[in-house]
């Protein structure tokens, strides 16, 4: 049996077992805050 046929499945793969999706960070927008303040003062 050739040595090359003994490639184990785990050697095929990314070391960490799959590529993850990015984290979703919560945002606090100052632009939105300023718009709301401005709308409030206009009203």
């Amino acid at each position, binding site marked *: 049996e050739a*040595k090359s046929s003994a490639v184990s499945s785990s*050697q095929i793969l990314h070391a960490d077992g799959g590529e*993850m999706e990015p*984290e979703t*960070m919560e945002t606090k927008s100052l632009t939105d805050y300023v718009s709301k303040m401005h709308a409030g003062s206009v009203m």
Partner: protein
Amino acid sequence: MDAKGSMLNVRTEDQSFHIRYRMEASCLELALEGERLCKVGDYRAGVSFFEAAIQVGTEDLQVLSAIYSQLGNAYFHLHDYAKALEFHHHDLTLTRTIGDLMGEAKASGNLGNTLKVLGRFDEAVVCCQRHLDISGDIGDKVGQARALYNFGNVYHAKGKSICWSGAEPGDFPEEVMAALRQAAEYYEANLAIVKALGDRAAQGRTYGNLGNTQYLLGNFRNAVFSHEQRLLIAKEFGDRSAERRAYCNLGNAYIFLGEFEVAAEHYKRTLQLARQLKDRAVEAQACYSLGNTYTLLQDYERAIDYHLKHLIIAQDLNDRIGEGRACWSLGNAHTALGNHDQAMHFAEKHLEISKETGDRSGELTARM
């Protein structure tokens, strides 16, 4: 107090109000510029503006909370997790002090994500739970869904952090499997909400991570289903990075299903997209996977072709470990074809690199 004295007091108060007004405006202007810079991906410059805004100071605690939060996120994107932790913690303390529940939920979510990256899973779970509880209390469905997604990520990372080297997916210790099953449950709970909300982008992310979790659990058909969903949504959005990830993850799952031809087709799409995206490291990985897949198919000529492509990129990137792997694989493929001189050349190269990189198992394999 005489008239002169009271006039002086009014003037001092006017001046003080004017200075405070200017400081507030200046702080806000600096912070808005920081926000703009972070939006275009220049986090380093964004941090400078936010830090300057803090130096000027503000009495508006909502503005201060937003600055802390965005600074934390900027440091997170810069991979400076200690700093990210510091600012998300400041934000949490502040929002709790002023009784801003929505703000506290968001700060908890960000803190949880940061603690997860730092491997502090138990603390991350507490933050995710707080995020989930507050979101539930205030009827914020989007917040609830995001907390569930973060929960899934924490348990997924916890499962992977436990030592499982050498084991194949689906064959990990019970502690790992339990964490992965929990991750899958949270992702499913998230999916129920984001589907009801019609949020396709969120569905895409969750399907991607659920696919990886099912894969590690050894449920390869389920993994394929999830990654197919992820792929569909990535195409809807024209998100080529997500598309590339999905193809690569699908290739991995098909390997374990023993469908090597199908796996090769998916890796080829990964390779195409990696080239379009000009991501050399991913291009190298795709070549390596293709080389190994053609080895499994016993098509050694093609395997050599892809391993050589991998070797060239690894050399360009000065990736000695990748180079070592390519040499090892090339040695094997040449052995299979009976090219003993070539096989010896690559085996010696592999041994040399293993010694240099301190890869003991690689060195032992090379000596065999």
